[in-house]
């Protein structure tokens, strides 16, 4: 079958040349465990967002009822819905139609008892909220990381409720946690009263007010719930110093914010203004004159803290509190040592395997060795082309794959030996050897693929690297077995060099 041989050789050569080009011109992505850096898995507190959304909706519904002259006993938000207590059981259909008209498919309405109605967000709306929170979180984190000037960061969604951040080359885990984990919700609020005693303020508390602690926790402020300005109206923020020459962060408002703020300060001269960051009052200066677009955040900051805070404010606030579920930092020393060790391990494994197969299969063993090298080349090119990341377990996958890839060769060679022992000619033996083990070769590769693909459900970190190299390796091994190995055996047989 000389025609078939040439086709196989042509395909084999094409794959080899292509792989060589890819490997030569594009470096492979190294995982954080090899090049060093920080990785984190963060989860935004979606429950909190939903709870706040229920609170807002509850107050909107109350207003809606008043506007439409419907009297109810109470509208109370809870963690998983809003309860409406009716005065008359007959009001139900009126309420049902009104709410459905305004909120359409965003809510589900159910009747708990004749006088109690429960309103819940529909699953469509809930998943919309979730989606928004995650998308916003990713955007804000991306801007923050950009502000820090990290080279080649990775910030991606992980499933539908988590975010993964990878910062190569960054080693200061505590700082990274602060910069990424801070909500950074800046609010300028109207101060009603202030006192070192929490109880005094609690007595005065009205429904549209709330109590916030000062930065050091020694004082309490009674402020209006609705902020005058939020961080969303910020134009920029930068490092500066306060009047005592201590580090501080100055900010400027955009035109919409400046207008609101200008009007407010003009009408509240002599009153106090609270500058609130993440629900803590940083300072509460007295308004002396109309201020339109500038402000300053002071506190006992170090210069580093000021730089980070300014950067965070520029990048914007996170939609909700972020929980750090998992983080890791790998120093540069460890990664370098790991690369060195894996090279030694790789060479050792290669030599062991090659020694064994050449000892048993002589010149055919040499073709198997070449197939291992080709397989490695193909695997590497596959990694580069798919933009996959090489991790330490991934390297283990590559090295183990050497031993596994040679499996099919061994299978074929043993069969050829068997056919030769039966008295077949060399060419017939090769022909039968291949034909008769092909189904086994399919099955072995398929079962390995099943195992490797299942590993992909651990979609983060080093294990994914293991799954990737194994999957690509299994496919590469299949290709190299079908294309080069047989072609090489045929050539050796033709020039009478095949000893098996």
């Amino acid at each position, binding site marked *: 079958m000389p025609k078939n041989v040439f086709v196989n050789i042509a395909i084999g050569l094409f794959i080899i040349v292509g792989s060589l080009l890819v490997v030569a011109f594009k470096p492979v992505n190294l995982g954080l465990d090899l090049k060093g850096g920080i990785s984190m898995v963060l989860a935004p507190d979606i429950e909190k967002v939903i709870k706040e959304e229920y609170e807002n909706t509850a107050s909107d519904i109350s207003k809606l009822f008043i506007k439409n002259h419907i009297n109810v006993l109470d509208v109370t938000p809870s963690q998983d819905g809003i309860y409406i207590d009716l005065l008359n059981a007959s009001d139900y259909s009126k309420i049902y139609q009104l709410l459905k008209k305004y909120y359409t498919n965003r809510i589900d309405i159910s009747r708990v008892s004749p006088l109690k109605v429960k309103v819940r967000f529909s699953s469509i709306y809930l998943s919309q909220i979730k989606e928004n929170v995650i998308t916003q979180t990713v955007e804000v984190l991306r801007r923050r990381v950009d502000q820090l000037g990290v080279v080649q960061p990775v910030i991606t969604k992980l499933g539908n409720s988590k975010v993964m951040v990878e910062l190569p080359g960054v080693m200061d885990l505590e700082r990274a946690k602060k910069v990424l984990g801070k909500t950074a919700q800046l609010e300028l609020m109207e101060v009603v009263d202030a006192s070192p005693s929490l109880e005094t303020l609690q007595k005065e508390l009205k429904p549209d007010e709330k109590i916030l602690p000062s930065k050091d926790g020694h004082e309490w402020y009674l402020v209006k719930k609705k902020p005058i300005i939020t961080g969303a109206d910020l134009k920029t923020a930068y490092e500066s110093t306060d009047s005592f020459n201590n580090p501080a962060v100055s900010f400027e408002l955009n035109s919409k914010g400046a207008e609101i703020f200008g009007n407010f300060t003009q009408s509240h001269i002599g009153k106090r203004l609270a500058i609130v960051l993440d629900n803590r009052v940083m300072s509460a200066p007295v308004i002396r004159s109309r201020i339109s677009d500038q402000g300053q955040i002071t506190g006992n900051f170090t210069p580093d803290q000021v730089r980070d805070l300014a950067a965070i404010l520029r990048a914007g606030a996170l939609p909700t509190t972020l929980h750090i579920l998992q983080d890791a930092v*790998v*120093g540069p020393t460890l990664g370098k040592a790991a690369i060195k060790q894996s090279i030694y391990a790789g060479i050792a494994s290669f030599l*062991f395997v090659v020694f064994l197969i050449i000892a048993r299969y002589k010149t055919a063993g040499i073709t198997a060795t070449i197939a291992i090298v080709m397989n490695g080349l193909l695997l590497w090119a596959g990694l580069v082309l798919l933009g996959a990341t090489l991790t330490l377990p991934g390297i*283990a996958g590559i*090295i183990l794959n050497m031993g596994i890839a040679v499996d099919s060769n061994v*299978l074929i060679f043993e069969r050829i030996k068997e056919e030769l022992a039966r008295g077949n000619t060399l060419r017939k033996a090769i022909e039968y050897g291949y034909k008769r083990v092909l*189904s086994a070769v399919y099955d072995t590769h398929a079962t390995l693929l099943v195992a490797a693909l299942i590993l992909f459900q651990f979609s983060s970190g080093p294990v994914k690297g293991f799954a990737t190299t194994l999957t690509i390796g299994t496919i590469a091994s299949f290709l190299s077995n079908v294309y080069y190995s047989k072609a090489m055996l045929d050539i050796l047989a033709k020039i009478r060099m095949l000893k098996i």
Partner: protein
Amino acid sequence: MRIKYIHFIKYRYYSYVISILLILLSAFSLYTRGLNLGLDFTGGTMLEVRFQKPVNVKQVDEALSKVNIKDAVVQRTNTGDIIVKIRVGEKPSLVQKALNSIGSFELLQREDIGSVVSGELRKKAVWAIITALVGILVYLSFRYEFLFALGGILALAHDVFIVVGAYSLTYKEVSLDVLASILVVAGYSITDTVVVFDRIRENLKLRKGMDLGEIINLSVNQNIVRTIMTSSTVFLSSLGLYLFGGTVLSDISFAFLIGVIVGTLSSIFVASALVLDIKIILKRFKKQKTG
């Protein structure tokens, strides 16, 4: 290498005894010692540091107890680095403080895993093992008779259980990487079995009328050299990793070292023998029903 024709099927009861002993040993170890689960599954914080001057485990233990950290696991790697692991809830900053009091060091790596993640990973790990086994079972029953698939899966479960038992016996850490490695060993071990099954299928077609026991025996014999050779190549490549690869790679390759040996034995002695015995039992069962 020429191997005499061996009557594996006749001697299968001896191998059953060995397998059962190994399974009992694994079960006993799992029951009494349990597994040394890695941070991935327990949650907590791990710090690996390199001191400028050599430091021993005792010094670190003492420094940790001074800052009131209990239940910390302190290990010294073969390169002399110190690994400290604490559970969720203990403060990593205290560990840093304790280490600082011993001397100056370089932080090689640190990992914090919350209990939410570790809980999730534990669940996922169990699912991964189950789906892997079921996935392979489905594939095999699609390609072969269900009876063969069943024999293959039983042999596979036997291999996986003994590998896990080996981790328990040596008290090596079972991290997510190791779990992944065990799953791949499972995938590999079944390939060995598949090759034998493939041969049985071929021989069943070629030699109609021959007794199943004889056919199995012939097929195992025809494949024995191949089985030993391929297992050796995988064993050798994992040996390179085990000897030279450093902590992480060694832990991963240990699953392969043990798994390949057990997998080879089970594909020679267990898988096909089980197929035969299940068939015999089923036949008797049918006879009883009809008769």
